[in-house]
């Protein structure tokens, strides 16, 4: 690994994360590592490591972090958040980081496709005539996506 100059990193990154919704408690972390120890994703994908992600935030490694694909590996199971002794709320921090990445245009390509789907049909999975007929047989109401709401939500 290349040696990084601490001065070239952004010391205000952690403060910006703290201003995001959900990132408020990021600076209370004292790197105990409970989040990483209990994370089910970390066991399959060792490169996704909550403790390392927090450390990167605290050291100001914004560029390095936001472009990483592992930011999107989190399944938001909230195990880390439940076990944190310092109430860092790491799952919320992940949301905050993802929001920051999207704003910088660093979201993975799949995210764009998902967004288009939502805007077109108001659902991730298309509900067609076949499904609605089945529902009618079972006495359930018809489902209609409302893309207008999502367009409103996602315009940014």
């Amino acid at each position, binding site marked *: 690994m290349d*040696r990084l100059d601490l001065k070239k990193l952004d*010391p205000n990154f952690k403060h910006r994360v703290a201003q995001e919704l959900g990132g408020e408690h990021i600076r209370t*972390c004292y790197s105990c590592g409970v989040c990483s120890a209990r994370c089910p994703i970390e066991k399959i994908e060792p490169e996704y490591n909550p403790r390392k992600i927090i450390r990167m935030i605290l050291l100001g490694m914004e560029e390095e972090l936001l472009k990483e694909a592992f930011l999107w590996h989190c399944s938001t199971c909230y195990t880390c958040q439940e076990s944190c002794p310092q109430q860092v709320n790491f799952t919320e921090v992940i949301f905050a980081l993802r929001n920051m990445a999207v704003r910088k245009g660093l979201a993975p390509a799949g995210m764009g496709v998902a967004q288009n789907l939502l805007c077109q049909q108001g659902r991730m999975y298309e509900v067609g005539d076949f499904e609605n007929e089945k529902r009618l047989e079972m006495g359930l109401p018809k489902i209609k996506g409302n893309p207008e709401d999502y367009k409103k939500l996602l315009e940014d």
Partner: protein
Amino acid sequence: MIPLQEFTKTPKVLILGNGLSAFETAWQLISLGYGVVLINPESRIIEETPFLSLGGWSVQDYLKDQRESLEKNPNFIQYTQTTLSAIEGFAGEFSAHLKSEQKDWTETVGAVVFAPELVSETQFADSHLKPNAQIITLEALTEIFSSLSQSIPFREEGVFVAFTPHSYIAFLSGLDAEGNVADMALTLSLALKIRKEYQSQVVIFCRQVKVAEEGMERLYQACRDEGVIFFKFDQAGPEIIRSNDLVTLQFVDAILEQPFELNPDLLVMDSVHSLPKEIRELALSAQIGMDESGFLQPANVHLLPQASMRTGIFIAGSGKGPMLPQTCIEEARAAALSIHHFFEGRSAEEMNREVVVDEGLCTICLTCVRYCPHQAIGWTHRIFIHPFACRRCGICAGECPMDAIQISGYSDHEVEKKLTALQERRQQVEFIQPRIVIFGCQRSAGVVWEEVQSSKFKVQMEVEFISMPCAGKMDPDYLLKALALGVSGVLVFACPEENCKSIHGNTYARERITEAKRYIEEAGLNPDRIRFEHLSSNMVWYLREVVEQFLGELKEKKAH
């Protein structure tokens, strides 16, 4: 015998030191009605010492108030530029030899308190650095900040050049040795101040963030909230590379396993703290004991926080290692109470009826004086045991070549009577098994033996226990006597190392037993019939194990 009423307690206390703990101890003792003599080798005024305290109170103001009210008190005498050259005598009436530039004189005091301030040595030489505008000690930076009045937010000279929003200040704290909470408190308070007032980036390099004091956890959290960066290291800290005027720190972050470097605009280094040389020498000559790192009070669990190895000599404050001002005050108050307890404690008439020196037998060889771990034995034209200083460990009685010192309850006569009683019982019982006798310290083996007897473990007929006040009382004569009475084996139990209430009792016992084994072998007997073991008071299983194993060995030998 010296009449017991000659042993008195002079209600006057000598305090060494000029810091917070010295003045607080003096103040508390004055309030308790004692006379205080405070001596200080320097003329430095204590308020000049830099302090940053936690919890918003000013150490300087506190000290100033205390000094002013003390100096008005007629019971308080202070000598500056005065040293203590020697302490003679015993608890209750020490002769303290004092020395100043003008004169030498002796003060008689009942108790002595060591309340020294530590001296700090820089570590620049170890790191091949020289102090300059970019490199400074923690103490120097503290001094700069504590002399600043709050209304001056910025100065464009000296270290203040480094305090800009884009600069990086690096603190190296507790990297070469185990850090301490006092330095950590200074480091964190300064880091917080710099972050808040100058917005510079602060990076702290340490082994551990020591927060075991009131308010420290809060301070640490405040630093993290302000964005101070911490790098922690297991062993080696950052590598310091110096080229011309540029200092570079190279290190690997333990969490990311990522190498980093930093050219700090200001490098703050901690110092090594130690006792002043004259205090160290005095502690050695007065035999009050020191620990491995050269601070006062040896590592022994039996010593109360303010006690030294000698009765009547107490320790208060940072002589035991760097401390926060608030802890110094607590220490000083505890020391004053310990001293009060000593003065209010039992008088000479009530104490020491138990130790007797037979003047007919004593040849004044002074073996006892040399061996006593509590400095409790003195001599004029005869040996006397000082009632306040003696802690009845019996080491002197064990060592005395003439057996002139006897402790009631444990005298040679009484021990021999117990051994003969065994002999008589042996004749009554049908005797097939080998028998063993256990000698043990009442504090460890004695407790274990009681436990063994009350537990389900059946006490075997062939094992007998004789209690000793301390393993140091163990006289090799008892071993020989036991063997002469036909006992198959002798076990001696002493407390674990560094855990002897009489400091060296267990070591003395070990040495004596080893020697005894050697001359038993020379006499043609099997030295394995004697065994020495360390035992602590909760090791019942170990006593059983050793006894069973020892019995097994003896039986095997008998069979051959």
